[in-house]
């Protein structure tokens, strides 16, 4: 078969899936649903027949006429030619700002007290005929004088010990990890005749984005940071798709993909700072439980299946060499502690970073992504839960949904009499689709202007061509075809509205259940701390209007950005922070919503705009009444 536009021809056995061929050919190719035929993003155009479509569930009759087929659901039965549409390729643009703003030191940094990795020069008495102690004992004796005894010295280091000591004229530089956060003897990480600056790397493996801070462990300052899409995206957009991929296809491939992403970041950091990857002596890794499992190469299956037990919540530190990570082979890699299968290290790290451990006021910390994780509490107690909101707010599972990149509609205003929209698009380009904040904004506007009712039903009897019955049922046309980049109407369908409603209802129901479990009222929450990339783009007013966030004064909401990587950074700097994070993870009460019989009730109550109990949303009730009177 031949692949266009790259014009690659490959010989494959009959019955091979097109997606397998594309992967074999080495072309970049995305499968957000992990090859289950659900997302429709792997559509390719069949130029010359010779294939059989097993499922076309995500394709319209029009698409089929145009020759589209789902690569993950179509098998090759004879000679064929297919085109991989350009627009379907992975977008490499990142939503996070390229030049991250300077990260401040989270606390006063005293490396001697806090830092487990120390680098210094040590002077050894040179050997002589009278002092004929062997090299290793000589070093051990000198370091014992500094308090480092016993000391682990790996064989690889021992092999170059003699040469290095002599080149350094008996005053080598050493890097020692005094005591890994999991206790044990001090360990010699590196030895050199040249001065060594101890460097660390704080990583956050997000399901979507991997972020890394390169940190000078002497000053504690972030030297530079970098972020990149997690390459695993091509094997599934959410954690469940990836777990399925790991089970059915290849666990190690997923580990390898995230290591590749980290390598890319290391290269970029090297270009910017001159610090080579081998110069990194310590790594901390945050991420959700699935990401940590895949990174460590642990089979994640049990995370997905009841009773949802992961292999490990409190990983120890491992050697970089063991993990095949491209930093100094003797560097220790510490994966941060998690709470449960769906409340991972990203949340313990987030809780530490957002300062929840220091507050007396009732605080809600939330991290909205594909999964919505939330923690409610004060310095004295915390309860956490996770709800599967689905990827709707990330633009997946919505007909014209997309990520927040150029061409995404990010905000919409609808005229309450003509129902005509005004839109704002990211970048100076024609609109291509709608991103999460745009979706929230459209839903809020449709609701307030009465285009949809409180149950999300599109009112087809309105006097506007923008409301119509489309292929997927009733829909609202956001942009007409002649103004879009794709040449097709950009719409929000009833099905999309239902998806968004379910997503927001799941998240709000999570808040309700947490609050009910500890007997507090959501209205009493004094501050809402929002982490995660999505939080940076969310418009509080719109999010409250649709009932995604509780109706509190806007000044109680604070956006903290990526709290997971900040927590990872704190753990990198400080042993105390690591211990605190362990305490957080151990002390948090986790509520498993699938085992909580009040969740479903809370969910149905929230499956309404803004909520069945309108008195929970007084500000929205006012806005809605005002529109109704106009």
């Amino acid at each position, binding site marked *: 078969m031949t692949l266009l536009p790259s014009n690659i021809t490959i010989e494959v056995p009959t019955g091979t899936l097109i997606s397998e061929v594309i992967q074999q050919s080495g072309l970049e190719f995305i499968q957000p649903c992990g090859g289950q035929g659900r997302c429709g993003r792997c559509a390719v155009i069949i130029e010359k027949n010779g294939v059989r479509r097993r499922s076309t569930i995500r394709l319209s009759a029009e698409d089929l006429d145009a020759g589209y087929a789902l690569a993950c659901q179509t098998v090759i039965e004879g000679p064929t030619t297919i085109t991989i549409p350009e627009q379907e390729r992975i977008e490499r643009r990142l939503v996070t700002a390229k030049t991250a703003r300077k990260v401040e030191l989270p606390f006063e940094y005293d490396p001697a007290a806090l830092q487990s990795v120390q680098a210094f020069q040590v002077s050894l008495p040179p050997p002589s005929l009278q002092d004929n102690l062997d090299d290793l004992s000589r070093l051990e004796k000198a370091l014992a004088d500094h308090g480092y005894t016993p000391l682990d010295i790996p064989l690889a280091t021992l092999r170059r010990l003699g040469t290095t000591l002599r080149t350094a004229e008996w005053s080598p530089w050493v890097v020692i990890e005094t005591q890994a956060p999991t206790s044990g003897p001090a360990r010699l990480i590196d030895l050199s005749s040249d001065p060594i600056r101890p460097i660390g790397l704080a990583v956050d493996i997000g399901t979507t984005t991997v972020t890394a801070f390169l940190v000078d462990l002497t000053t504690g300052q972030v030297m530079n940071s970098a972020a990149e899409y997690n390459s695993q995206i091509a094997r599934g957009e959410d954690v469940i798709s990836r777990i399925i991929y790991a089970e059915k296809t290849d666990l190690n491939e997923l580990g390898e993909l995230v290591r590749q992403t980290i390598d890319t970041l290391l290269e970029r950091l090297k270009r910017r700072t001159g610090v080579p990857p081998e110069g990194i002596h310590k790594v901390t890794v945050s991420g959700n439980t699935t990401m940590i499992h895949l990174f460590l190469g642990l089979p994640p299956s049990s995370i997905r299946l009841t009773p949802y037990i992961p292999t490990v919540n409190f990983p120890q530190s491992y050697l970089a060499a063991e993990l095949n990570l491209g930093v100094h082979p003797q560097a220790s890699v510490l994966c941060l502690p998690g709470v449960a299968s769906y409340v991972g290290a990203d949340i313990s790290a987030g809780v530490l970073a957002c300062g929840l451990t220091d507050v007396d006021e009732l605080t809600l910390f939330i991290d909205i992504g594909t999964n919505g994780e939330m923690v409610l509490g004060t310095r004295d107690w915390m309860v956490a839960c996770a709800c599967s909101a689905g990827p709707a707010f990330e633009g997946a599972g919505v007909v014209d949904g997309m990520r927040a990149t150029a061409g995404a509609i990010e905000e919409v205003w609808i005229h309450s009499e003509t129902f005509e929209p005004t839109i704002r698009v990211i970048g100076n380009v024609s609109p291509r689709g709608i991103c999460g904040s745009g979706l929230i904004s459209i839903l809020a506007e449709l609701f307030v202007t009465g285009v949809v*009712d*409180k*149950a999300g*039903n599109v*009112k087809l*009897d309105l006097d506007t061509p923008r409301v119509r019955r489309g292929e997927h049922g009733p829909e609202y046309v956001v942009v007409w075809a002649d103004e879009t980049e794709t040449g097709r109407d950009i719409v929000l369908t009833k099905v999309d509205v239902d998806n968004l409603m379910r997503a927001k209802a799941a998240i709000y129901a999570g808040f309700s259940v947490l609050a009910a479990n500890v007997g507090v009222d959501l209205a009493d929450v004094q501050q809402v701390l929002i982490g995660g990339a999505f939080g940076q783009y969310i418009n509080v007013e719109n999010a409250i209007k649709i009932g995604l966030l509780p109706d509190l004064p806007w000044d109680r909401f604070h956006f903290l950005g990526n709290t997971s990587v900040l927590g990872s950074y704190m753990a990198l700097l400080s042993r105390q922070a690591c211990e605190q994070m362990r305490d957080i993870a151990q002390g948090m009460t986790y509520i498993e919503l699938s085992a909580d019989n009040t969740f479903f*009730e809370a969910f*149905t*109550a929230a*499956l*309404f705009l803004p909520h*069945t109990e*309108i008195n929970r949303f007084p500000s929205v009730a006012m806005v809605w009444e005002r529109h*109704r009177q106009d």
Partner: protein
Amino acid sequence: MTIEIPKEKWTGSVCEVTFGATADEGGTRSRTLTVGGETAMPFLHFEGVTPNPPALALEIRDRKPDDWSPLLHQAWGEAMEDPGEWAKAAETAGADMIYLALSLTTADGEPNTPENARAVVRKVLQASGLPLAVAGPGQAEVDNQLLVPVAEEAEGERLLLGICEDKNYRTIVAAALAHNHLVQSKTPMDVNLSKQLVILIHDMGLPLERIIMDPTTGALGYGFEYGYSVMERLRLAAFQGDSMTQQPMLVNPGFETWKVKESKVGEGVPENWGDWDRRAQEWEAITATTLIHSGADILVLRHPESLHRVRTVVDALVNPAATA
């Protein structure tokens, strides 16, 4: 020693709702029917009042139904051949209200038409002076086609129009608004969903005292307890002051019980199941009686004898002294 009975003090009450309109009120009904108004759980006279006893409606069809039990055919006989006659028979059997359900098709399988629906409603209104409820066949598009002309035909009669569901309520509510009728708001056994649909209907401008909730029930032995508890919770919410749950509740035990095996099957069942006719009637009557205890205000029944049995219970509950 005197025993103090603990009493709940409620702040809310159920709306009072009136169906039908007499000539003075712009209709042609010989009497109207008022339900609701409770201020305490059913028949807890020491806590509050039940000003209007539960009403009993009999279901009739615009034509002789193909799928009803032979026992019901036996009970109604010739009357089933003509909706006017059937309505009269229902009134004679003691119904407080006629519940007319329109069929999807005519007897020869042709789609039902707006003209037919109008004619049948006119005929039933002329045959009986009881307040009338009219429900569509239960397919959104057909319901809307038939109920809009029905609403217009019966202008001023304060019909109960059904059935509004969350995916199809706007047309029916608009018709009720335009022609001064009431609507039946049906949701599948869930407190939140019930409340949500009342809100949606009310948002269109229909006053709360023109909405009847149908929280859906099951037959005895077929998920009935779940529906019972939903009704009880709705009623408790109403007493706690939630205005979107204060609508009187209508349930249709007739529809539910006549489709279960115990009512449907006359042969090849264990002998101790007893007489078929009596068993079927009792299944309907016991289901209905139990629903009264969960707060039902209107019960739609099919068999005249079940109505008689339920009526006996209602009378005894309303006036315990007379029966004792």
